[in-house]
């Protein structure tokens, strides 16, 4: 540390400190003003405060406690933010599935294939995206159509034959189709439907190979 050599020098140094103090206060006001401006005219700037938001100096133990409390609040805040994010994603996903189920039922497709005279099997899922449980529902397969207008009435079996799906859950069903021995090779199209579920329809494609 250096001290003034004479009264004149001491005066000059005091003037220097005074001048520097004025510049500092102006600079800090400018910085905090910029932060307030970004936050809006009616709100204190949360980002770059240091002057107006200062708390009076107190016991350092108390300040440590304040810091610890703020840290805990930050942890809970971030945790809550993450939970809300996950919940939001889940709700959005559910809404999209729901919307897709009603408007584009044809995208649910069941693929069956096999040789004439064999048994073809496939698995399909029934998703209950509503808030109500689905009562016991019987599934059935429509006639299948070939490109040339040929029609197939197959003795399809569903396992289980009736399904119950709680609200928000899904059920897996096994579809089994005996392919007649005397039909031509090719692709046949039809639908798997649920009795009492007018919105639910899964396309069924049967590929018969020779």
């Amino acid at each position, binding site marked *: *540390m250096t001290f003034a050599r004479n009264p004149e020098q001491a005066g000059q*140094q005091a003037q*220097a400190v005074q001048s520097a103090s004025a*510049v*500092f206060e102006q600079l800090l006001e400018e910085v905090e003003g910029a932060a307030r401006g970004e936050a809006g005219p009616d709100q204190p700037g949360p*980002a770059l405060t240091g002057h107006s938001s200062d708390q009076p100096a107190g016991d350092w133990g108390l300040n440590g406690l*304040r*810091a610890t409390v703020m840290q805990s609040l*930050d942890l809970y805040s971030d945790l809550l933010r993450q939970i809300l994010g996950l919940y939001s994603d889940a709700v959005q996903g559910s809404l999209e599935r729901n919307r897709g189920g009603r408007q584009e039922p044809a995208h649910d497709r069941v693929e069956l294939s096999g040789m004439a005279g064999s048994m073809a099997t496939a698995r399909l899922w029934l998703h209950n995206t509503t808030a109500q449980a689905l009562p016991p529902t019987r599934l059935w397969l429509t006639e299948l159509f070939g490109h040339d207008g040929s029609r197939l009435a197959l003795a399809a079996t569903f396992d289980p034959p009736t399904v119950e799906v709680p609200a928000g859950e899904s059920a897996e069903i096994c579809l089994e189709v005996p392919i007649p021995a005397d039909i031509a090779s090719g692709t046949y199209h039809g639908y798997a439907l649920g009795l009492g579920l007018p919105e639910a329809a899964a396309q069924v494609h049967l590929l018969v190979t020779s």
Partner: protein
Amino acid sequence: MTEFLGPGEPSPYLYDLVREYPSRAGKGVRPALLLATCQAFGRPSDEALGAAVALEMLHNAFLIHDDVEDQSALRRGNPTLHELHGIGLAVNAGDSLAHLAMQPLVGDRALSTRLKERLVAELLMVVRQTTEGQALDLGWRRDSVVDLDPAAYLTMAGKKTCWYSTVAPLRMGAIIGSSGTAQLHALSRFGFFLGVAFQIRDDLLDLKGGSGSGKEPFGDLREGKPTLMLIHLLATAAGDDRRWLVDYLHAAPSGSSSEGACRVHDLMVRYGSLTYARDFAAAMEVEAHRAFGKAFSTVGDSEHLGFLRGMIPYMLARQS
């Protein structure tokens, strides 16, 4: 920093350049202040590492552009980046480093979202203040402004040097260490006076030059840099001395010479400008010591506080 400045392509044109200044041994004053302040406020240093790395990377980005703007030939004892690779690639590397500097802070998992938002705001304010201060410095030089007073110098130094060298490291360290509850006014005041004292000493050091400083001797005088000594000289020099000085500054830096810079130095000695600047810096140092007590009045004594106290004489007594 090495972690954030790893290998990448195009390496010979960008990432090798980006790594150049950080790989040269610097003093690390800014991260040291930031980390020690965080610890003095009671939190471990690893929570402040991201912010410290971000600030140091930003400092190195500033240095690259600063060297181009000042047409400097040496940085930390070696050729500047634009001397090695040309102005275009050097400026581009500086741009890259400045943006990469945000990465350690934004991606920091040790900090809460609220603290990260505050620290990013602090870092953006560093960019704003530093570039404003640099604009004043360069603008005054371009226009050969000769009627500056000490308050103008303090404003320029406060923005250009103090804010990012001392004020911001202290504020950012305290924000992390106290989870955003610390008093920043007293800390900022301490940082400002320490930074001003540091800048004046640094300007005085330039007049010594030599290999130890890592700078060219009388570089500031040749560039016509508005230092406190030059401002004092312009205010006190009389007659032919002042007329010659004004002409010299109008010609700088392209028309300046070693002889001219030596004559400015002689005038500074004769008119007491060096003594004036030394006394001014001493007053800033005394005030920094006073402000230190208030700045850290809310934290308990610790080795970290002792380290910070020791930074005052370290920064102000340094020879290089």
